[in-house]
């Protein structure tokens, strides 16, 4: 009996998943996004094989501010470091931060939002008021304040961004849970005596996961942009770590003579975030095909 049930359930899920995947792969823009993201992911995974990390921090002061050449594809920076190595190793930092922050903020948000929406009452009130307060401080300001209090650097930046972003996920999940709570099949499982945890895990979370994935995909893009901005104003990742935003901050003063130092990391950020946004849009349309017509 349970075997059959499981089969029916997974069968339904699979076909739903397949339909979404089919729509996603039919979407040209989403495919372009996927290709662009694979391109970046390639550098994230294979950067050390293409050029060792030492190349990204190795200074060669006699060879500074070189324009792009066959030896240094993207030229060299003010300390004579190879820009190509710095840019592709930068991908590792940006993408890792993007994934890490999104995963942590998303998970914390899902837990808080599900608890808040499902239990309601006092817990809901407290969680939501705290979220309100966090969300009424502009994102950047909040990150700056938190980073200062725990010290500059990558770790603080990640903690700050996770804290700043989880309330957004919590709100989204709470709203979806609330709208699902009244839906018949959830009421039915409540009536059948399913435990709360089971209802949340088996019936509610799988049904709110769609909008969360969409939000997470484009959210990852804004995490990458935010991390670059924080590093650019000098509060995120610090030199000599090859981070795109920090690289541009240093390159700014010599911008007139060496514009390539700004153009190259900028284009890599653009490719990364654009690919994520394209995939996010593709996922949204695939999950909710209604929106297209």
């Amino acid at each position, binding site marked *: 009996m349970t075997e059959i049930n499981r089969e029916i359930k997974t069968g339904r899920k699979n076909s739903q998943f397949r339909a979404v995947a089919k*729509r996603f792969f039919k979407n040209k823009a989403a495919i372009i996004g996927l290709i662009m993201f694979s391109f970046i992911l390639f550098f994230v995974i294979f950067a050390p094989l293409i050029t060792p990390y030492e190349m990204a921090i190795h200074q060669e002061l006699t060879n500074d501010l070189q324009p792009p050449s066959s030896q240094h594809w993207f030229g060299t920076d003010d300390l004579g470091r190879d820009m190509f190595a710095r840019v592709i190793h930068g991908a590792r930092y940006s993408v890792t931060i993007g994934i890490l922050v999104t995963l942590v903020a998303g998970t914390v948000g899902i837990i808080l939002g599900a608890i808040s929406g499902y239990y309601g009452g006092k817990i809901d009130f407290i969680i939501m008021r705290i979220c309100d307060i966090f969300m009424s401080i502009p994102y950047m300001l909040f990150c700056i304040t938190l980073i200062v209090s725990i010290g500059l650097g990558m770790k603080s930046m990640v903690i700050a961004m996770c804290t700043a972003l989880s309330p957004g996920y919590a709100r989204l999940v709470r709203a979806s849970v609330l709208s699902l709570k009244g839906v018949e099949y959830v009421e039915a499982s409540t009536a059948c005596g399913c435990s709360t945890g089971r209802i949340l895990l088996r019936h509610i979370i799988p049904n709110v996961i769609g909008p969360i994935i969409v939000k997470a995909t484009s959210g990852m893009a804004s995490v990458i942009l935010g991390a670059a901005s924080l590093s650019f104003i000098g509060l995120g990742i610090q030199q000599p770590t090859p981070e795109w935003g920090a690289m541009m901050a240093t390159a700014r003063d010599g911008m007139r003579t060496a514009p390539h130092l700004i153009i190259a990391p900028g284009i890599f950020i653009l490719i990364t975030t654009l690919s994520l946004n394209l995939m996010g849009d593709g996922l949204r349309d695939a999950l909710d*095909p209604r929106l297209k*017509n």
Partner: protein
Amino acid sequence: MEKEILLTIKNLTVKYKTDDGIAEAVNNISFQLHKGETLGLVGETGAGKTTTGLSILRLLPERTAEITEGEIIFKGENLLDIPKNEMSVIRGKQISMIFQDPMTSLNPVYTVGSQIEESIFLHNRDLTNPQIKEKADEMLELVGITPERRDDYPHQFSGGMKQRVVIAMALACDPELVIADEPTTALDVTIQAQVLRMMDELKRKYGTSMIMITHDFGVVAKTCDTVAVVYAGEIIEYGTVQDIFEDDKHHPYTTGLFHSLPNMNQDTERLQPIEGLMPDPMALPAGCKFHTRCPHCFDKCKTVLPQDIDFNGHMIKCHLYSKEV
């Protein structure tokens, strides 16, 4: 006594283009509607009734739906030839439509009074504001709503009340033709009867013609003069209410529909539903579209599309009867 013809639909064919293929929603539908009469379009959900109704007003979704063939002649003029922007002169004024779901048919951010006033204002630009207001109040009263509620918003009304507002809007300019798309489906049974009675009274009072789209034979019996039974985008049986309810010759589909209704006069143990499902409009079967579910199906049905067989105006599209004529 031959009545004046108000609307003639000839060979109307509508297709929807979707990501998964082309759906043939309406296939070669033809019918006539006389002045002051009510025609019932009966059939299951997805048979193409609403699409037919929307085609008349040219309100089909522009990008996906296409009228590939046919004519819609209203008072001697083919509506399909009229430029798109001139349709707004006809909509609401000469032909208006009552939609299925009153909960979503009213604009949530405007008061019901102002929405009725808009219908009047759009086609009577010479009226002054107080005159429009007065007329709108009159319409509210006509549908049984006190004019004091004119400044309320739709969300403050119940479903039945909203449908009354929708009806008031549709009738505000004394249209010659009203297309009512399942006007009572979303309502409680008790409210259904009230709304139907009210629509019938209004129709008589103003001599309005009506196309009643429904899946409910009870509604047909109460309101219609002629009936067209629609299956998979085709009219498979057409006749007067008497033909449909009293004649013993029927399309097997119509018979099936009747058998699936509870009948007070017969002592049946169980209702007999029609086996199977309506064919997918993206993959319609060859021959008679009903053959996949028909208890009388024979070889010819599977390949040859049956023609209309005329029994003094009672038309049946079925090979079963072709031998007789």
